[in-house]
């Protein structure tokens, strides 16, 4: 399949990364999955190739090795039409409060590393004059919560980074930045958690929304599970004096 479009998923061993890549593959896009856990990424790549018949490759990448990010982007044999970054880690908030190293890892994984990487793509896409950058952030970044504020703060940073990047690139025209805020998604990361059923979606729902926001109905910021938009609007509107006394 030459001449078709291509997508690169950073975090290709994750459930959302897998579902997203599969969604694009079903439309004939060529797929590359980049991940630290190559075996897991390969399992996803095999699945995508078998289901869709589309060429799928994997690439090794540890985003925390930030010194290597520029080299990674420069070294790609094809610069993708769309790059989707689903890198993230919930981390253990309680432990992070007493373990600065873990706190640092949460911040770096959810904010520093994805931002530095997407900056590289922004430059490469701007030089080419086209491309879509999709950053998967989280509703957890909309308001700090007692139960996950390292994760939330890092996602807040990432959301703002994407927002700023979008504004910078908007002036140039052809490069788009999409911010995706999933709420509760049933994935490996949340497998052990009780999630509120009406607000919980499957990874393929996130994938569908990403595909739409990129290809069929371009949007800048999307909340997956639309009712989450309302939930977050209410949560964000609560005065801090009240919010701090609530257990949510």
């Amino acid at each position: 399949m030459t001449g078709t479009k291509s997508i690169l998923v950073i975090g290709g061993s994750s459930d959302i990364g897998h579902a997203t890549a599969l969604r694009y593959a079903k439309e004939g896009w060529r797929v590359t999955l980049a991940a630290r856990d190559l075996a897991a990424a390969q399992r996803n790549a095999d699945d995508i190739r078998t289901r869709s018949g589309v060429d799928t490759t994997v690439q090794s990448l540890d985003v925390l090795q930030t010194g290597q990010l520029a080299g990674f982007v420069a070294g790609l044999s094809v610069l993708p039409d769309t790059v989707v970054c689903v890198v993230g880690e919930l981390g253990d908030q309680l432990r992070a409060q007493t373990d600065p190293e873990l706190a640092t890892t949460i911040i770096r994984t959810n904010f520093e590393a994805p931002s530095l990487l997407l900056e590289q793509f922004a430059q490469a896409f701007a030089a080419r004059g086209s491309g879509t950058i999709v950053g998967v952030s989280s509703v957890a970044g909309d308001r700090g919560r007692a139960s996950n504020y390292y994760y939330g703060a890092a996602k807040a940073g990432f959301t703002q980074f994407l927002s700023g990047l979008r504004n910078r690139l908007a002036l140039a025209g052809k490069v788009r930045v999409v911010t995706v805020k999933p709420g509760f998604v049933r994935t490996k990361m949340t497998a052990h958690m009780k999630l509120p059923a009406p607000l919980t979606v499957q990874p393929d729902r996130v994938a569908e929304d990403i595909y739409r926001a990129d290809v069929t109905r371009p949007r800048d910021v999307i909340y997956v599970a639309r009712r989450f938009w309302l939930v977050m609007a209410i949560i964000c509107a609560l005065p801090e004096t009240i919010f701090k006394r609530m257990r949510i």
Partner: protein
Amino acid sequence: MSGRASGISDPGGIRLSGWGNYPKISTELLAPQSPAAARDDLLGRSGVVARGAGRAYGDAAIGTQATISSRGLNRMRRFDAATAQLTIEAGVTIADILAAFEPRGFFLKVVPGTKLVTVGGAIAADVHGKNHHRDGGFGTIVDSFRLALPGGEIVCCSRSENVALFAATLGGMGLTGMILDATLRLLPIETAWLRQDTRVAGNLDAAIDQLESNASSTYSVAWIDCLARGAALGRSLVYLAEHATRRDIDRLGPDLAPFPNPRTQRLSVPELFPAWLLNRASMRMFNELYFRRGAAHQGEPRLVHWNPYFFPLDAIADWNRIYGRRGFVQYQCVIPLERARRVLADILDRVSRRGDASFLAVLKQLGDGGGPMSFPLRGYTLTMDFPVSDTLFAFLDQLDALVVDAGGRLYLAKDARQSRATFESGYPGLAALRDIRQQTGATTRLASHLSARLGI
């Protein structure tokens, strides 16, 4: 934030049931996300069994201590178009396979009445389709699988490797180990359509005559009106079908696309479907309409898409809820050929006099079984649903006596209540399964509520 969780286990466990919503039992639920993790979950546990999509009706997929879901084992591995061989993990469903390969002109030669089952579940029950009398069970399309034994060893089973374990796993109801992945052979098809012939049979004998004289049809099944009595006892619509060729389409439906886009309309039964709708008057009316409509199509072959043809019930999500909170059991027996007419007539007569069975019963011809524990044997199988009630189990015990006397057996994938004696008299292959369980150390380690109840 807290709230209802679906299928996620508390430290204290979760209440699980099969498709019949009876019985509901507490168990720890594990949800490994890869074959390797599934094997690790199995390692060192006891009272554990694998679970696929939970489409077995009774207690087969509920471990006495813990239950390992295969739903995270949902990746496909590879497909070779030249040999039509597909390798997939055990939690991939038949629906997944058809969604990916039907548009490319491949189908599965054996499918049960719902596509929402996993490959692991289909192997473990050696499920049969409407073509069992001709083509055999699901096991016939399986070339090999990898099985995790309770000790953590992973063995490859096929017709040339670990042969006894391969055979005992077909129909072994998860009691030989956890299937991690499998290689199947797909069936090339020319179109997505079936060429269906409908025959009306005035009573049970006529229905069996029809099935018998059309034994060369690829697919055949009879829908029996359970409410008809007396001379009309067992009146049925007999459906015969073949995969339609391109030429069939040219002839019977020139406007049809050979592979139409799937339409995804799904109705859902509300959580508390009023059980009072299932009364005799409404059922009688439904059956009358159903049979008149069927009779109107008699004689003219029609093209029917594979989805409604094979999976009519899948169009209604959660239809099992119509039986209400107490749940229901499905009764599926098979009676050997020579005794089938007389014994099935006796069973149907008792059922119609009792009057609380499902609207419709299904009658199918079966061929020889696959593994020692596979349900099919050469004869006729009858399937009916009964809402759970205080008098039901005593009534079904009476039916069991007829089945045992005729040398028949009950389907474990549907069972929730048969006795050990009924089970043991129906499954002479049990000794082979017990041997294997002994050898692999599975005896107490792998245990479902079904195996505990029946002493497997």
